[in-house]
């Protein structure tokens, strides 16, 4: 499968980002004061922090700004923008290192992002922030460690934190939640570990909050499954439900996207191992009509493992398009767009949620500099013009597409 496989998408452009084409899970659109549409991208790993690309003409993307990380032992991976403020996550390779936390930037001049503040989350047991959600301009919801958090198991070093950034120069933590038993001193017993070769930790990955239910947080809790929280009182989040399907499945629940009008949750796993060692990693359709009792009803169909398994490369689910509650983001409560590493970007129609139907895919040819010789499509964003942006994890950079289904 060395050639580009494309169905019901139209490729508009490909930009390898000048040799630094490894992009993580942060993709956010800013409309600059001069009207330019800027796509901010968080890099997957050092040495680059973030890159800003002018995508006003999606057929001719242009880099307008780029920043390096201060240390090689860290990564940004995740970022979000609201207006002219950008929040960038910083996670270190090991606990106890710095800088670990998030940084707020003033991006009113996209060519010249200026730091507003750095919120420190470092500590002897912390790697900082892996992922952050910043949609309303007021609160950051994130997966982070903290100086005062001592986990019962070193792999459970991140938890859910809510940070008030209404004064961007003085962010303040207003609430936090962790799976009972994962912090030392908890009365609940620690959770039963997954097998040693598949223990990826009881900690949140994505922490989504939407204006349709501002009192709810939807967490992909990695080895803990799906977790929904009542955050009406941000200081005291309470668990509403947890759906944990592993074992027998390998862990790493990644993202939960509610389709509010239809009573559904779309839930993705992350494939974290190569050669199919954690196959299958899936996108699940979950009946969420009774929020206290989520019931899985189907999964999005995937080509068999042999189709896309390559040495040194991942093939399985990862990120979803998350219906970002922002004006410059597309919304759909029927179409699922999901990234599958070597399986590329795939689109599904969930009109019949018991039988989601594949309606398109985009599997680009392997990037010239791909370390595994395979494409590893990592994340996807869709703007309100219905232009699709998707990125490669290691080398391919940015692809712009039109949906044609």
């Amino acid at each position, binding site marked *: 499968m060395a050639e580009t*496989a494309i169905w019901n998408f139209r490729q508009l452009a490909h930009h390898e980002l000048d040799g630094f084409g490894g992009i993580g899970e942060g993709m956010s659109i800013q409309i600059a004061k001069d009207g330019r549409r800027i796509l901010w991208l968080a890099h997957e790993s050092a040495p680059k922090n973030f890159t800003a690309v002018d995508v006003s003409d999606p057929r001719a993307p242009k880099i307008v700004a780029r920043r390096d990380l201060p240390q090689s032992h860290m990564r940004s991976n995740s970022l979000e923008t609201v207006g002219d403020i950008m929040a960038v996550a910083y996670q270190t390779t090991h606990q106890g290192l710095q800088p670990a936390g998030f940084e707020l930037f003033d991006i009113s001049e996209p060519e010249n992002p200026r730091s507003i503040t750095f919120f420190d989350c470092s500590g002897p047991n912390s790697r900082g922030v892996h992922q952050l959600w910043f949609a309303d301009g007021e609160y950051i919801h994130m997966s982070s460690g903290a100086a005062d958090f001592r986990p019962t198991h070193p792999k459970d070093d991140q938890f859910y934190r809510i940070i008030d950034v209404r004064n961007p120069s003085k962010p303040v933590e207003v609430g936090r939640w962790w799976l009972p038993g994962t912090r030392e001193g908890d009365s609940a017993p620690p959770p039963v570990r997954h097998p040693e070769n598949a223990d990826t930790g009881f900690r949140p990955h994505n922490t989504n909050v939407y204006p349709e239910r501002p009192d709810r947080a939807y967490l992909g809790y990695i080895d803990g499954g799906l977790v929904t929280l009542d955050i009406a009182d941000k200081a005291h989040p309470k668990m509403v439900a947890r759906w944990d399907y592993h074992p027998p499945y390998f862990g790493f629940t990644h993202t939960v996207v509610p389709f509010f009008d239809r009573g559904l949750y779309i839930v993705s796993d992350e494939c974290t191992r190569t050669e199919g060692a954690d196959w299958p990693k899936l996108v699940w359709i979950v009946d969420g009509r009774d929020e206290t009792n989520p019931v899985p009803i189907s999964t999005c169909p995937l080509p068999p493992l*042999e189709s896309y398994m390559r040495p040194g490369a991942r093939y399985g689910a990862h990120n979803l398009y998350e219906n970002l509650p922002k004006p410059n983001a597309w919304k759909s*409560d029927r179409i699922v767009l999901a990234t599958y590493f070597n399986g590329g970007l795939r689109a599904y129609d969930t009109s019949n949620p018991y039988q989601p139907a594949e309606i398109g895919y985009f599997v680009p040819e392997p990037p010239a500099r791909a370390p595994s010789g395979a494409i590893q499509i990592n994340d996807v964003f869709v703007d309100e013009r219905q232009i699709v942006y998707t990125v490669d994890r290691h080398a391919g950079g940015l692809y712009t597409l039109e949906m044609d289904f």
Partner: protein
Amino acid sequence: MGPQSPFAGREALPFGRRQRRARGPRLPVIAVTGFLGSGKTTLIRALLARPEGANTAIVVNEFGEIGIDQALLRASSDATVLLGNGCLCCNLRTDLQETLRALFADRSRGAVPSFERVIIETSGLADPAPVLQTFATDRALGREFHLQSLVTLVDAVAGESNLKRMAEARKQVALADRIIVTKGDLAGADATRRLVEQIAALTAAPVEIAVNGAVAPAFLLDEPSAPGRRFDLGGTAHTHDLDGIESFALTFDAPLPWGAFEQAMAVLTALRGPDLLRVKGILAVAECRGPVVVHAVQHVAHPPVELEDWPDADRRSRLVFVTRGLSREPVAQLLAAIGAVAAAAPGGS
């Protein structure tokens, strides 16, 4: 999954998600018909040589017919050969349905390269009606494939005579979405013009004259626009031929209640199904925000598709009928009568 589904959401979508076009996400199929020697193979080969023809799967009766240059072959199996240009060519197996099912499955599991359209070269004498029916229902191929257009080739040298003598030739023309006249250079301008006039008496489908066996790829590949554009004044474009094959269009100014339309078509199908060679249309349906595309072949109706928007400024319902021995008047009266009954029915009962 209809609006009664617990997951339907607040917005009523009686025919499922609104689509950008009639095919929705399904793979488009272009069926090429025409008598032996009309130039089907030449036309398809010319398309494959163009960039627009990339990512096409061709289904033929015999590999020999398409005349594949051996130098283009990259790999082969019993049933499928890979061509340059990202295309593949596939032998028709026992039947078209089985062939396309196997092709779709092979594509899904990555056993053949990804393709984004299928072109079927039918055998010279084929009646196109069974091919049209194959794509009509979910139980057949209608879930994965959409018959985008039936393209009929008529060669300017033998076409005039064939159309006079052979009922199948006339049927191929009457049912077609597009007509391509080939070999005009051999027949000469006058003969070609006469043939085009002869074709226009049988169908209102667009006609293109091939040059060196080829046409602009868009004529072959683009989705046909809304039906009835050229004869939406109804009776004035009424055509008929020796076999009683007629084509006519009906338009309706007011939106149609779906239930009434469905009943009218059910009555028509029950009484005259075999003579409804093809019915296609775009309807303003009272219950829907977008227009609804309908398509039926004899007794088989495709599932309706609601579009996101109208293809042009005309918001009237338009239906095109190709029939045998069934003229416009009774069909118009039936639809009008049922429409009138529906309109007179008390609301909310």
